């Protein structure tokens, strides 16, 4: 019983800590949507926070489906 409890707790902890958010992202360029591919975890957060730079223009990024 103790082993089962410990095993379940470890699995639960791994499940929680190994979960990363991933999403397909794009920005709205001058000629329409431009796909950027999949971003996960910290990369996703940085992209949403800083935007995507093309030349002198920083585009707001959308990483979800409407």
């Amino acid at each position, binding site marked *: 019983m103790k082993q089962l409890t410990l095993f379940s707790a470890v699995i639960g902890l791994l499940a929680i800590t190994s979960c990363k958010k991933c*999403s397909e992202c794009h920005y709205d360029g001058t000629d329409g949507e431009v796909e950027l591919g999949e971003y996960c975890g910290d990369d*996703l957060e940085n992209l*949403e*926070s800083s935007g995507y730079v093309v030349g002198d223009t920083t585009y*707001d990024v959308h990483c979800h489906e*409407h």
Partner: protein
Amino acid sequence: MRLVIVLFCSAIVYGQTFEGKVIIEEDPEKPVPFALIYFVDLGSTVFADEQGNFKVANIPEGHTTIEVRAAGFEDLKTDFYFQSGQINLISLERSHRELDKVIVSTFGVLQGENITNVERIGMGDLMKIPTSIGESLSNIPGVAQGGAGGGISKPVIRGLSGNRVVTYLNGLRVENQQWGADHGLPITELGIGSVEVIKGPSSLLYGPDALGGVIYFVDEPYAPRNTISAFGQTRSEFATMSTSNMAGFKISKEKIRLNLYGGYDNYADFRLPTGQFAQNSRYSQASGKMAMGYNHKNWVMNLRYNFFHGRYGIPGHTHDSIPDYSSFQVNEQSRAISIPAQVVNNHYVLFENKFQFDEHFLMVSIGNTFNNTREFEEKITIPAINLQLNSTTYNLRWKTHLLDHKLSLIAGVQGMYQLNLNDEKAEDFLIPDAVLNDIGGYFLMVGSVKKWKAQAGIRYDHRSVETLNSFNGVEDFKRDFAGVNYSAGLARIGDKSTIRFNVSSGFRSPHTSELLADGAHHGSFRYEIGHQNLTTERATQFDFSYAIHLHDIEFVINPFYTTISNYILIEEIDSMIEGMRVFAYDQIPSAILYGGDIGFHYHPHFAHPLHIESSFSMVYGEDEDKNPLTLIPANRINTQLRFNFNKKSSFGLKDIIVQHIYTARQDRVGLLETPTGEYHLLNAGINFELEKEKTTSVLSVGGRNLLNQRYFNHLSGLKNIQMPNPGINFYISLKINFNNNTKTK
């Protein structure tokens, strides 16, 4: 100083062991076997044996409130004086009927100190046909459901909701940004034993803001002494392909008691009557709860902790300036995490202490609610709105009995320190960082002579609100509000009838959202604009209740009339900003709400399994020019037939419930508000029970909206995007209870 200490110590009475016996009032020679005796202040239960005998240890000598129940007998609630060295006799009256105390109740945490009509209902009765806790509350006459669909549900009491309805959980005032139309009830059914509702201004005992009423959730009691119990429950629903699971564990020893609970729910987008799905109406919830009780001599302590995490999809997201509402109803059902979404985390802690000194009773409690509300609108990792609300409350109450319990005096002090902060990384700041300080003191007298009971009380409150930084160009915003409230009532509680009349007042200062809001609130599907010059609302309610309880039928009529001066409302103005309809806060000199409930419960002697209950609820709201107010619930008739069965074997049919709800057309609408059509809903459920030596299992199957009616809830935010409520929905549920005595005989 020494004299004070001696006098203080001599007033403390020590916990002892008492013996008692439950007997039949009409035939005192005969016992009432296996009666349940619940000690309200201790939160613990003992059972009488087959001779009606029981023993209880570690309670102080003197008056203590008990509830006694036994099958075939009238329930009893009384302040009983336990004396040592003798058999304490408790008498129960026979009852040939088992009318549920739904319509008229003298029980409950609140009713003991109130003449105000208090509706009390057990969770088992509320959940006979299971649904969300918010929707289940709308089965109570006078209570309706608002919100934003899915898991976001807001109670509406006699037409008032949001900041005007205060929610309590075991004496802890719960704060969760309830000003928001999309900020739902912060509680699941996990570990809840009953709910009590006061309809109307209740500021005397529950402080500022309780203008519309109070919803008071009471946890399940602890396990009976020296027993262990546990349960597991799982439920699935068709319309949402949902899974709802919970488990609980209880253990009680002589002095210490512990309850533990955990639960998890996951709901996909709900199915519409057309067979399509409401896009992004999905949600998930996780909750945990711990309650620990301890008593020693004259001291009873309860420590409670609740955790709640919820993620709610927000339907109706679009970038189109003229939205196509049909695009929100899709052919594919999903439960995948998406945006926009609202994510809520709540932590509640309550530390409550009760002391009994013979005829005096002191309660001291301190609690904290921490709420984090985030709304993810355009970005998955960066919330547009990120609010942290930290509320610390304290409550001191002293109660004493005089004149052989014919007069009770209650005095108390309550307060709250609340800090609301926006996370600096959030993209939108809908309400400012602010500090709120409440303090109030009250005094209440309750007297009783034979069948008559009278109550009168007065209270003073002071509130200060101060923003912590500049907000939307407003610097150094600071306001103070103060109010005096009262309550007076008279009741005659007879054997065959109960009459109550109550006058009560309440006050509510405007919230910072009403004063200073200026931004899109996606969860409410609207752009909101505040009004800095709002002043305090004040309400007075006249409430009358007359109930007849005969052998086979109970009938109640409960009209009310409420006036609110300086009524704050939010109304749509003819404008669109960021593709959203614009709503602005305003204030009118006065508003009137009136209406009432009429109900009956018929349990014929010739057909014992049958119960027929029906209630009609109506509310009308208008301003001083007789113009209708917005968001007033439609009139409603709620009828329930229940067949209870006595199983002849260990497995069998327990009960069948059929419910019909008729909601009338609501065409008394405010400016730019649209009418909502009438509709009929049919719900039904069947429960089977299997009893073994140490386990009881209940299998439930049934459905809601069995007619697959396409309908709109007049109070729901989904109406703003022309999204109807869910269509036909079947469910199946299994609950298994385990019980074991820890002490061998």
